[in-house]
């Protein structure tokens, strides 16, 4: 609808390590979505009774800023946000090696600064990077992308207008290395054939996003390395 091909992603901008205080963070612009994710942990479980003996407790909060939508959204967590916090956690949890940190918690915070359809998927893309940035051991990254149906056609990565006028929305999160889906939701109306088509399309898109995630992570480490090298040079000169 915005001039893209049916299997074309919106422009994606990924930045890792954008926040100073968080153990890990990432910023993702997916089309007009602007999403910030931060990870704290592993840290001591608090309150103590939530701790698990055999692995870390993963906690996740997905939240939308009041100014992120057309109409102001109340800052109190809505039922939608509570549900999404749950499905996002369940999408990330299979990738995190939480068994390395028993009795601790890993907290994931996702703030949607501007929403334009597909926030949960972009949130997962960002949160997976924030986890990696925090140095938490992971089996692999997780990437998210939605497909849907607009004007009777199966299309990739709906924008806000398409989502509102469209007939179906299918958010998917993929663990690309093992080719398994860790988030799958759907609403609208799709035949079995259309569903298969949409699923394949979004899985393929997640792979592309995964490449960009890796690129962003690599870039982050080059930056850190360059800074470290410079500091080293500086100390040598001083000495």
């Amino acid at each position, binding site marked *: 609808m915005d001039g893209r091909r049916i299997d074309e992603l919106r422009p994606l901008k990924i930045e890792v390590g954008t926040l100073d205080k968080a153990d890990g963070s990432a910023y993702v612009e997916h089309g007009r979505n602007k999403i910030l994710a931060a990870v704290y942990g592993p840290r001591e479980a608090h309150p103590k009774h939530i701790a698990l003996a055999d692995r870390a407790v993963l906690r996740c909060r997905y939240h939308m800023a009041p100014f992120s939508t057309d109409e102001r959204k109340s800052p109190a967590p809505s*039922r939608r946000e509570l549900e999404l916090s749950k*499905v996002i956690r369940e999408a990330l949890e299979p990738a995190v090696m939480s068994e390395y940190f028993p009795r601790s918690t890993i907290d994931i915070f996702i703030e949607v600064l501007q929403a334009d359809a597909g926030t949960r998927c972009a949130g997962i893309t960002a949160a997976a990077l924030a986890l990696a940035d925090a140095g938490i051991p992971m089996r692999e990254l997780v990437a998210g992308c939605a497909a849907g149906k607009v004007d009777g056609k199966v299309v990739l990565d709906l924008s806000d207008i398409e989502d509102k006028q469209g007939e179906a929305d299918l958010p998917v999160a993929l663990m690309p290395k093992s080719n398994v889906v860790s988030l799958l939701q759907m609403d609208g109306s799709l*035949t079995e054939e259309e569903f298969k088509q949409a699923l394949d399309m979004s899985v393929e898109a997640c792979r592309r996003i995964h490449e960009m995630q890796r690129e962003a992570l690599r870039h982050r480490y080059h930056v850190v390395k360059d800074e470290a090298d410079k500091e080293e040079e500086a100390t040598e000169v001083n000495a």
Partner: protein
Amino acid sequence: MSATRQFSPVAKLEQKTVVDLIGKGKRVDDRGPEDYRPTTITLGVVEKANGSAQVYLGKTKVLAGVKIQPGTPFPDTPDEGILTVNAEFVPLASPNFEAGPPDENSIELARVVDRGIRESKAIDLKQLCIEPGKKVFMIFVDVYVLDHDGNLIDAAAMAALGALVNAKMHAFKVEKGEPVYLEEIIPVPMQNYPVSITSVKVDGTTVLDPCLEEEQVMSCRLTVTTGKDDSICAMQKGGLGFLSPDEIKKIVSTSISKARDLRAKMLSNVK
């Protein structure tokens, strides 16, 4: 904040029995992998509600009630009635349920049931408009879980649909923007009958309609809701595991055919 759930401690031995049986194509309650537990649905169990239905899915017991009241429409749909689905996991249903505001599990369940009804356009909401932009009828579907023996989503969806089919309201005409109720009693305008089918993956094998023991050892579940023309109207994956695209496609096609049987059976019982 959503946190990793603590499961009620099930003895390792018991877990192993459940997993081993499923691996052999058998199940704890002697069903086959794709067998649904016997279901019974009783309509009109609560007289004061506009509609109600009680569903037994094996030993799982769910009650749903429908209440209809006039209210203000949403600004983006001024000429449509409002559908609200809420779920209560009442503490008497399971040792793991606690009193208090709805937790993420009951919110997820309510929202999955809501999506099935809404996206399949099960209710003709346009017919519930009294005065566009001012007054419409609001349909509240409240799901009460009374006994938890697994697969609450399917049982709740069935109870909600039963209660809606059972729901009656006074016919009305509109005078000066206010509804004037007539003698005649009419049903809620239904145009689709969504049915949810949930499968779980246990140790690489998928089985339909999990009982509680199976849910406790599952890696993940997938709910597929389909309408009367076999089109998929809602899906939800849950749990900490994952599924391959091929597994998903297989579950979807099994769910579609299973939903067809279940819908036919249910509607023949109801009408």
